[in-house]
């Protein structure tokens, strides 16, 4: 195959991955890496390198859309970025020291978890906030619009959230993904922040987290221009289109279909990792 045909094929599959990633709320990276590895037999290091670049692009591209709604909390995001960037450094460091098969298995587990979490959907109405002294000191609180009126919220269990964020950063650096599902887990489940605030703040943090491992990726040669180009442009285009559709369409059934696809990809990644075919 020549370079043009290859670029078009990779770009087309990346558009699809970005679209799927936006619709399920999982992000493009978590979809594009297994597709590149399993379908195109691309080396895992190059796949995660290209994916990480696309993750920075989609996070930055989508942030412009979200900040208009005033849903993300920049203070909470900035503070937790200390945890995710440190984790990302650890994750990027681990890539060179862990076997490809092991990375594949971890990737598969994250895919399975993400697919199940995406079906869980947004939880019920927020409870009244119980800010502790740490949340007061760090100003981990705010208000967001619910049916036209502002509802106050505050964070609880910040140390637990901080710890989970470190894990999210490590997975991001190890797997070249945004690990949005784990970031949402830290804010929504651990810190009891409203679901919408959690998802938009998570997206806000993804670009900076990925940038922290990008430096390591570049110096190790994981980012190849010929591969990163179609992946980045494809995933970016696909996810922008996906988030447009998400606003208009009823996607409950689609989400189920996609979750099954992602479960299958996850199982295949684990299988490939265990049998040493990655």
């Amino acid at each position, binding site marked *: *195959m*020549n*370079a*043009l045909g*290859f*670029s078009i094929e990779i770009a087309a599959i990346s558009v699809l991955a970005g679209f799927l990633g936006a619709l399920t709320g999982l992000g493009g990276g978590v979809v594009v890496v297994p597709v590149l590895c399993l379908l*195109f037999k691309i*080396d*895992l*290091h*190059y796949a995660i390198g290209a994916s990480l*670049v696309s993750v*920075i*692009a989609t*996070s*930055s*591209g989508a*942030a*412009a859309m*979200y*900040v*208009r709604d*005033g849903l*993300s*909390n*920049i*203070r909470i995001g*900035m*503070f937790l*970025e*200390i945890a995710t*960037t*440190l984790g*990302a*450094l650890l994750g*990027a460091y681990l890539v060179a020291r862990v076997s490809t098969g092991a990375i594949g298995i971890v990737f598969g587990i994250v895919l399975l978890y993400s697919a199940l979490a995406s079906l869980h959907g947004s939880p019920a109405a927020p409870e009244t906030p119980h800010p502790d002294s740490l949340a007061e000191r760090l*100003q981990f609180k*705010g*208000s967001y619009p619910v049916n036209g009126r502002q509802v106050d919220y505050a964070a609880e269990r910040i140390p637990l959230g901080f710890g989970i964020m470190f894990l999210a950063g490590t997975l991001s650096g190890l797997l070249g993904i945004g690990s949005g599902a784990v970031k949402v887990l830290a804010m929504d489940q651990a810190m009891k922040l409203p679901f919408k605030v959690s998802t938009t703040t998570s997206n806000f943090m993804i*670009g900076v987290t*990925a*940038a*922290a*491992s*990008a*430096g*390591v990726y*570049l*110096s*190790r*040669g994981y980012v*190849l*221009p*010929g*591969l*990163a*180009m*179609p992946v*980045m*442009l494809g995933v970016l285009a696909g996810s922008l289109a996906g988030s447009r559709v998400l606003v208009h369409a009823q996607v409950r059934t689609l989400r189920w279909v996609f979750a099954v696809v992602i479960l299958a990809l996850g199982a295949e990644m684990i299988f490939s990792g265990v049998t040493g075919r990655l």
Partner: protein
Amino acid sequence: MAAGDQRLEMAMGRMLQIGVTIAAFVVLAGGVLSLVQAPHTLPDYQHFHGAPPTRMHVDSIMTEAFYRNGGAVIEFGILLLIATPICRVLFGLVGFALMRDRLYTAVSAVVFAILLFSFFSHR
């Protein structure tokens, strides 16, 4: 949320949008250029080769991109893309300093330092 936060958030969003747009166009231009320059060569992506020693160093990318080497133009676009969220942190640093919020100026400075460390500790 305070009005200052809202304004800072808007400025960050706008900055990210501009950064990613410029980076995407540079990457696209580099892609077209490299496909025109070498339409038939396809590198081996199936096996990991490690890092070529001189690639991906900022000055060598700039020089090569200047001579319109397609691959180097893509790499330059990727550098612009990575710089975008880093600039966002710098934006936050300045914004919180202007709001005289010492805690969050320090928080932004720590994140910025970690990002700089990731770039300059491996050379």
